[in-house]
């Protein structure tokens, strides 16, 4: 299914405005990151270990973001034209390509986990995951020359985007989404 404005609006009315075009074999389909995760759509940029660790970190920052497809959202955007990318990394002027930044951030977090807990991120308890996030969230934190605080901020925003940045997310907060009135024909400037 091609990503069109009409299809976006249709999906928006159903509750999610974070529909992205995922490739399943030779077919392009319009899915939410949550649906892409449930359907096990292959990742394009992150490998399985990176995606798993990104989910653990994001879920420690904002529980529920893994199930809602934060890894699929990030992976999809790492494969996008940077000018069209939806990641907040753009605002933080993260150097391109963003995939290097995310790969670096996950690797540094893995090193921090081993340093602090002598475990991989994969093996951390919930309490230890929170401890790792606390280290990453120290303002201005830099580890091995990598801006780990900036990575935390980006990952935190990614998690918030998939959990609360959609009509479904607004409903959870009990505030109206108020999507715009569709512009009448002739308003195309």
């Amino acid at each position, binding site marked *: 299914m091609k990503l069109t404005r009409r299809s976006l609006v249709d999906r928006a009315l159903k509750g999610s405005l974070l529909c992205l075009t995922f490739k399943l074999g030779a077919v392009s389909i319009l899915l939410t990151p949550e649906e892409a995760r449930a359907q096990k759509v292959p990742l394009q940029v992150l490998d399985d270990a990176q995606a798993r660790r990104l989910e653990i970190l994001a879920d420690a920052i904002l529980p529920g973001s893994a199930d809602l497809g934060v890894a699929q959202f990030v992976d999809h955007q790492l494969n996008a034209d*940077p000018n069209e990318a939806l990641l907040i990394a753009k605002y933080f002027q993260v150097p391109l390509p963003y995939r290097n930044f995310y790969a670096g951030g996950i690797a540094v977090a893995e090193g921090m986990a081993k340093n602090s807990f002598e475990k991989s991120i994969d093996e951390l308890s919930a309490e230890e995951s929170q401890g790792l996030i606390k280290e990453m969230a120290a303002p201005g934190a830099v580890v091995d020359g990598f801006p780990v605080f900036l990575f935390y901020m980006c990952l935190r925003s990614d998690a918030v985007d998939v959990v609360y940045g959609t009509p479904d997310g607004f409903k959870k907060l009990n505030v109206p989404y108020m999507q715009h009135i569709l512009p009448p024909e002739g*308003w195309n400037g």
Partner: protein
Amino acid sequence: MARVLESVDAVVVGTGATGSLFAAVLAEAGKDVLVLERGGERKLSDLYSSQTWARRLKWASPHVVEDGPDSIWFNFNAGHGYGGAAIHHYAVWPRFHEDDFTEKSQYGRGLDWPFEYGELRPYYDLVQKDVGMSGDAEKEIWRPPGDPYPMPPVLVSNHGNVIARGFAALDMHTSPLPMAILTQPYNGRPPCIWDGWCDAGCPTGALANPLVVYLPRARKAGARLQPDAHVTRVLMDKSGKRATGVEYFTPSGEAVVQPADTVVLCAFTIENVRILLNSADTNHPDGLSNRSGKLGQYLMSHPAIAISGLFEDDMQNYLGATGGQLLCQDPFGKRSDPGGAFGSRQWEIGLALKPNDLLGIAMTRPEIFGSELHEFMKRGARHMGSMVGVCEDEALPRNRIELASEKDQFGYPLARIIYETSAEGRKLWQTAAAEGVKIYKAAGAQEAWHGPQGGQHIMGGTIMGVDPSSSVLNSAGQSHEVENLFVGGPGVFPTGSAANSTFTAKAVALKSAKFMVENWGAIAG
């Protein structure tokens, strides 16, 4: 070998706030106008109501190298595609004050503009009528002379009213925020429905972005728009006195020469300087319009501070416009800072909040994570208040735009920015941080806090001035050295005020465009 196109009367570089205005005025005067846009074509129907999707409107290309101690937040402030940065701007349009134009002569600080407020006033009045501004001129007690706004002020919800209690308690005045947003039908455009999606681009036509005001006028008058045209240089004749057009590249890398009788650069502050520096030739070894050595200097931002707080009240913070509901310019006096810092400040009160994104609820408290973040989001969605303090940044030559050693895909150097907030601007920001929290407490906030220093707007670099030895452009935005070369946008400002820049950029552009039309024979040759 570059492909050479048919010559036009005027080539305008950039489709944003000022490029669209130049195009409209010149085309309506019967000129053959071509507008080149680096980004893609964009329609109102592309503007989705989502803070996540809004990021498509911002810049990401490796284009600017920021080397100074402070960031000017280029990617957040800039834009690409039809409408440029103005497609996602918040339409907060206070006028600059009279003494913003005379700082050097009046206070011995900063620079003087080559004209005073009175000379610009008619253009403010014309622009506000063009776009259909809303506001209350009488309640805006700090406002310099000007026509009343053509329509009533924007919505004030609990959000604005609750925070206004704090201002009142401290004997500070608030007024409706002057905005380029319709509150009634106007020229076939509908009024705002207060959904707070301004940052994502307004697709209804209520917010006066270029897609609904000046670009339609330009097209109706015959101007043509060319997307995906990456302008690299202004081309000059052998005498070095007249521009002959511009060079641009297509996405496939094809070089194209667009001859023109006049050239107008409206590619935003940084890119205008970059194009002029990259246009260096034997007659202009240090870049075009840089005989003074001032090209790129006096780069300015607005040091900005977000004040957040939690109130017992249901704030209705999801209603309104992204830019806010109310204004306070009590601290606008250049010498009003209690700490003695020079410059102006203002408060924009009651910014519509969304859960996510840079100015969203979540980002106000980055240290919160885990299940506490869910609780914070729920509380914030109902009870958070938001306002932004904007401070003046003193114009300093050390803050500048140069060429970087890194190059773009076409082989031209990127822009390098060396910027550090002026000492005066930093002091004003510190005053604002303390004052903002105090205002919230006076309004009854249960908790109040401020964010880190941010930067709004990017100004300077191609400053206007009377003296060609100390400025880049004359009072008409015309190059001191190349009579058929003009520049538009906030880059032409010699000082930055604390007022938002778009309205003034448009007023100055209208003044320049009318000058071009009235003096066309002498300019176009």
